[in-house]
């Protein structure tokens, strides 16, 4: 039976793993390669590396760390951040990444999703969506440039419309980051994930809000997501992956031991 995936997310800036609270105030957690290796050995099912500065400040970013990760890691990994073209994605995949994830560049040029699909196949193309609940309108809205607080801005897209559009264009997986929950460890946004699940025919990954092991049980059993992404609970040692997997198996969730 296909297992639900546990996906530690490593936010990368200047070759270091960092973590902020609600996308702000980043602190350094450690070096990329040893952290990646540690997670693979601990039982992570997949890793995501977000180069969080890349999309927002427009400079050319050194991605040689992708190759160094590919050398030591024997589980799948995805690279996000600063991938604006088919050529950018090709370089990342050549260095050994299994997937690329695009977010702000897909909002600027939705056709990029279709081009990546045609060139590398659907399975390589992940679309990350930063979704924020707007209390005034009562709607979930898509934000872009979330790696840089001064440039973060609301787009014209409602989250549910953008989810439909990226699937139409050929996305192979969607990572839904619920910004209201990010980094505060109060649980995944189950209501939003459930509503998006109904619209999502490709694998859906929950992101933002994991604080306890019970939050993972809830997101898998309530929202039926394919994977759950988390950062701080793993980086800070609040949750051990082996203990989490044992609990999820005991709770009847399909998990790779």
């Amino acid at each position, binding site marked *: 039976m296909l297992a639900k995936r546990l996906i530690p997310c490593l936010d990368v800036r200047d070759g270091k793993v960092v973590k902020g609270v609600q996308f702000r105030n980043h602190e350094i957690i450690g070096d990329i390669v040893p952290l990646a290796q540690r997670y693979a050995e601990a039982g992570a099912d997949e890793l995501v590396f977000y180069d969080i500065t890349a999309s927002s400040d427009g400079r050319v970013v050194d991605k040689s760390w992708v190759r160094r990760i590919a050398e030591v890691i024997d589980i799948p990994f995805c690279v996000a951040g600063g991938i604006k073209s088919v050529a950018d994605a090709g370089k990342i995949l050549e260095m050994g990444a*299994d997937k690329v994830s695009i977010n702000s560049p897909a909002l600027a040029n939705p056709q990029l999703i279709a081009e990546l699909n045609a060139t590398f196949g659907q399975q390589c193309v992940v679309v990350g969506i930063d979704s924020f609940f707007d209390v005034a309108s009562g709607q979930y809205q898509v934000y872009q440039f979330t790696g840089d607080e001064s440039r973060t801005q609301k787009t014209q897209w409602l989250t549910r419309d953008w989810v439909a559009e990226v699937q139409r264009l050929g996305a192979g997986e969607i990572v839904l980051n619920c910004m209201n929950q990010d980094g505060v460890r109060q649980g995944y946004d189950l209501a939003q994930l459930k509503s998006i699940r109904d619209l999502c025919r490709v694998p859906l990954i929950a992101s933002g809000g994991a604080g306890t092991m019970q939050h993972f049980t809830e997101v898998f059993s309530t929202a039926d997501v394919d994977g759950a992404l988390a950062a701080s609970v793993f980086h800070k040692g609040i949750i051990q992956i082996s203990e989490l997997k044992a609990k999820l198996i005991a709770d009847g969730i399909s998990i790779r031991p």
Partner: protein
Amino acid sequence: MAELVIVDTGCANISSVYFAIKRLGVEPVISADAAIIKQAERVILPGVGTAKAAMHNLAERDLISTLQGLQQPVLGICLGMQLLTAHSMEGDVACLGLIPGEVAPLNAAGLRLPHMGWNTLHSISQHPLLKGFTAQDYLYFVHSFAVVPSQYSLAQCHYGSDFAAVIGKDNVAGAQFHPERSGKVGARLLQNFLEWQL
């Protein structure tokens, strides 16, 4: 003579296969040169993308008859496995025909596609490549097309319906999952391949 050659199919992610073999202590050669491939002790045919594009690349590199004539152990991975069969419905293209079989859209019976993630095997046969494998082992799959089960299936996987997870005939075998991305279990398959004596 190279111990192991990875065929350069012109698809993107050959590095992950290269590094996985290297972690097992063998330095692979990546090549699209027919002479180098023919002389190798073992050959891996990787592949990501579509069957049509991959067969086009192999034809352009004039490698089809070379691959069809190999006598040493050959392992196809993911799309590389699908290319070993006679035909793929993905682009309606003739493949290498080394193992009888057909590649069809995976009948996921309403489950999400692509079939992406870690899954288990069943109907695991006694074959040198599958030494040590059990129905409790998880392997990493990413695909939307699959080889229809037949007498050449060495192991199957279930996702909506059964499909061939490992196939083999004579000196040629293939795995639908990615052994290079399947942790220690995947490394076992690659190690078994390195030790496979015909």
